């Protein structure tokens, strides 16, 4: 059960000198605020799926886990205009700020899951009408997750109330799947949710040996070695050709813009989408789990001068020195996966994060789940910590590190002045399953701790 604490409308404590100074001024504001209370965020009149307005808040006397710096005991945070306005043991509180008593509570930055397809699929099996992850064909760089992400997916509320405030949602099909989006888990429209609408190009690095996993049954058919090797190379060559076309297209386009006497290139929406990625302005996410695929992706990205991110990374620890040398970050999704080989140590994936950390590789931890199970993200990080990752790094692995890898650390991932007010207020360690969340802010908006699951619980829990 989520617990809402009362007292949000108090304007401050008498002992607070800062508040004393503004109290007189504030009195009139309080009068206005009272009339506006019915529309204020956090009020039960909020409707599911309708974005609440931004508000001005102060969380007082809480333990503030900034992630980027030291923890602040008995600290306060001011939230205004969607941003963190002040953090510290003594802060200036704006007039009319709603005060939240943080005594005994901890404030964390919201968690970020960088490896989902949230909002693109509701029910994967038996309801294909709800599946929008995978476009027809192998090459769809112009297929954009932000277009199809469903703001009213039940998965969003379910993940959000566990303290996950942001996800990267990525398409999954073909060789070039499309473009992933980085969103706030709040908003009535994709536009309202978008933090980086087109955050990365997603490429499924060809699986050597083809076929891939999946299929059950007793016997894996014979593989022709030569075929297996060349099939992967062929697919890679197709990707290479498409990226080069994108590069050439960008050059032709720019040249024409400078000199209209040149032949005017036809607009090509597919190649157009590739331009920022082939120029290294935006990152390219390579799905790759096995060692050979990760090495291949790094080599390919270097050849094509891309800005690569490895997604998956089961074997990344085996490639750690190369990842470090090339400064290629990894979004680890496999921590709860079964070891890939029968003779792997039982904890090979539990401890892969610790190994990457020790090797100095940039990484973050993701559920890798399409959406429904993304709420288990803190448990992935916790398991990595049970097997060697420090608690501090486990927390960073689901907050600051994904923000850095996705180039949004100026806005997300830690509690610092000027960052987006995506905050979670808990009664304990954010990664511990027994912890409860008491307040949630996204984009400076106070979000009700309700979801499809709390609603069904409320409807049935007292049935006699």
């Amino acid at each position, binding site marked *: 059960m989520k617990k809402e604490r009362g007292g949000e409308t108090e304007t401050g404590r008498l002992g607070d000198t800062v508040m004393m100074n503004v109290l007189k001024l504030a009195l009139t504001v309080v009068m206005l605020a009272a009339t506006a209370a019915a529309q204020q965020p956090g009020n039960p009149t909020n409707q599911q799926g309708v974005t609440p307005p931004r508000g001005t808040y102060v969380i007082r006397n809480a333990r503030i886990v900034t992630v980027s710096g030291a923890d602040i005991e008995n600290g306060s945070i001011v939230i205004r205009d969607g941003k963190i306005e002040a953090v510290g043991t003594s802060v200036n509180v704006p007039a009319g700020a709603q005060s939240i008593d943080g005594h005994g509570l901890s404030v964390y930055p919201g968690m970020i899951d960088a490896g989902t397809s949230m909002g693109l699929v509701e029910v994967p099996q038996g309801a294909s009408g709800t599946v929008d992850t995978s476009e027809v064909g192998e090459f769809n760089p112009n297929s954009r997750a932000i277009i199809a992400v469903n703001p009213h997916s039940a998965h969003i509320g379910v993940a959000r109330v566990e303290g996950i405030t942001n996800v990267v949602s990525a398409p999954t099909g073909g060789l070039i799947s499309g473009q992933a989006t980085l969103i706030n888990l709040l908003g009535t429209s994709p536009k309202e949710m978008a933090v980086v609408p087109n955050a990365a190009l997603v490429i499924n690095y060809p699986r*050597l040996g083809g076929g891939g996993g999946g299929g059950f049954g007793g016997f894996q058919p014979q593989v022709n070695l*030569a075929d297996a090797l060349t099939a992967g190379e062929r697919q890679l060559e197709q990707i290479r050709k498409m990226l080069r076309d994108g590069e050439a297209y960008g050059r032709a386009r720019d040249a024409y813009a400078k000199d209209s006497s040149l032949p005017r290139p036809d607009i090509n929406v597919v190649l157009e989408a590739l331009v920022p990625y082939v120029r290294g302005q935006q990152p390219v996410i390579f799905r790759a789990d096995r060692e050979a695929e990760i090495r291949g992706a790094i080599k390919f990205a270097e050849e094509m001068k891309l800005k690569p991110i490895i997604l998956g990374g089961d074997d990344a620890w085996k490639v750690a020195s190369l990842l470090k040398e090339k400064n290629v970050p990894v979004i680890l999704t496999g921590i709860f996966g079964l070891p890939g080989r029968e003779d792997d140590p039982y904890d090979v994936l539990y401890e892969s994060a610790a190994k990457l950390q020790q090797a100095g590789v940039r990484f973050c931890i993701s559920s890798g789940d399409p959406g429904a199970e993304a709420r288990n993200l803190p448990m992935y990080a916790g398991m990595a910590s049970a097997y060697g990752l420090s608690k501090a790094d486990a927390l960073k692995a689901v907050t600051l590190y994904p923000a850095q890898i996705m180039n949004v650390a100026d806005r997300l991932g830690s509690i610092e002045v000027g960052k987006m007010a995506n905050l979670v207020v808990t009664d304990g360690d954010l990664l511990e399953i027994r912890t409860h969340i008491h307040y949630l802010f996204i984009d400076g908006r106070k979000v009700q701790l309700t979801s499809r699951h709390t609603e069904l619980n409320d409807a049935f829990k007292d049935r006699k």
Partner: protein
Amino acid sequence: MRRFISRLLLISFISTLPLSITRAQTPAANPSETLIRNATVLTITHGVLANTDVLIRNGKIAGVGKGLKASADARVIDGTNKYVMPGIIDCHSHSMLDTINEGTLAVTSMVRTRDVLNPTDVDLYRQLAGGVTTVNLLHGSANPIGGLNTVVKIKYGRPVDEFIFPGAMPGIKFALGENVKRSSNPNLPGVTRRYPNTRMGVEETIREAFTKARDYKRGWDEYRAAVANGGKNLIPPRRDLQLEPLVEVLEGKRYVHAHCYIASEILMLIGLADEFGFKIKTFQHVLEGYKVAKEIAAHGAGASTFADSWAYKIEAYDAIPYNTAIMTRAGIVVSVNSDSDERARRLNIEAAKAMHWGDLTEEQALKLITINPAIQLGIQDKVGSIEVGKDADLAIWNGHPFSVYSRVDTTFIDGDIFFDRQQDLSRRADLAKERATLEQADPNKPPAQGQTPGVNRRRPRTHSDDEEVWEGERP
């Protein structure tokens, strides 16, 4: 690439090695006595005991208390800052089954999981490393009435006969809903679907089977009565292996473990069981159990559910993580299961979720993976709690098992160690060396060209009701 190919070959080679070489986990000498000193003991039935010793003798728990004495040659383990809890019991598993679904008929009560056990399944070892000691191996969910279960202790490294849990209640798998309807199999022209195709047909299938079983039982009852009355030259009814287990269900000698999802099908089976006068021992998955908790409680059934899995198919879309707590408060004996080789390794966390969603107490949540599943399998007098006289099936954790930061140090079954982290770590260098040697061996060198040998994949990556494909749908 060479690595990949050699790996392919290596795996096929290793799988043919005798067990003693690949993975002999049991230490050479397991002493008859073990004393765990000064640990926090989660007894389950008698609270949490701080700074307490647990004495194991001849495979049983011989003492729980302070300052216990052991014999001179006993193995002594310092439990300071550690937690001891009963071995976790997973009430829904398909581990170590070489095949899961006999899917060709709607009623397959004549087939037994006991006949397809593979004791070398490495996922068993991975589950020991998660503190699991007993699992309920169920037939799959392709049929309204499926095959017979097997309850085993994970005595990894021992002969298969030693796995069998002595005295566990025999059970049978039932299943309702999408899997039984074969919902994921498309309707193709020219391909005859197996009956049933609807939840109506599922009810009718089970009804017909029990109608036959009741008649069959009557035939035997009359025959035995006649024999008892001194009848001569009587001809016994012809034995029917399909109906025999159902007669045992009618007589309360075999537990029904019924896979189900939605409220209506749960109520259907309760109504049918009441009508025929038998009990459902557990509803499995039972993700909408929270909607009909009072009916489940009134029938006296248990529930074995997922902590928080949902939305993976339509019949799981109304699943909520409060299910466990709501059913517990309704008076139902509830367990949290895995139905997955992966999830089985972290059932401690799955149980802790009931404290997060639904605010169960720590004791209630611990019971979800210990004494409650023991009750559901009829083994509660032997395992599921730490009490003198019970089997010494325990795990030592390096922190509270409900913390995400904790892991298992040592797992005991019947007083013997079947997993020990330090031992596991110390063997890794040798295994790596052995592997390197094998990779250089001639039979493992990849051919310069041509075909790789076919690789025998013994079993799917994960076992679960919903992921298993069953072969041979008859046209």
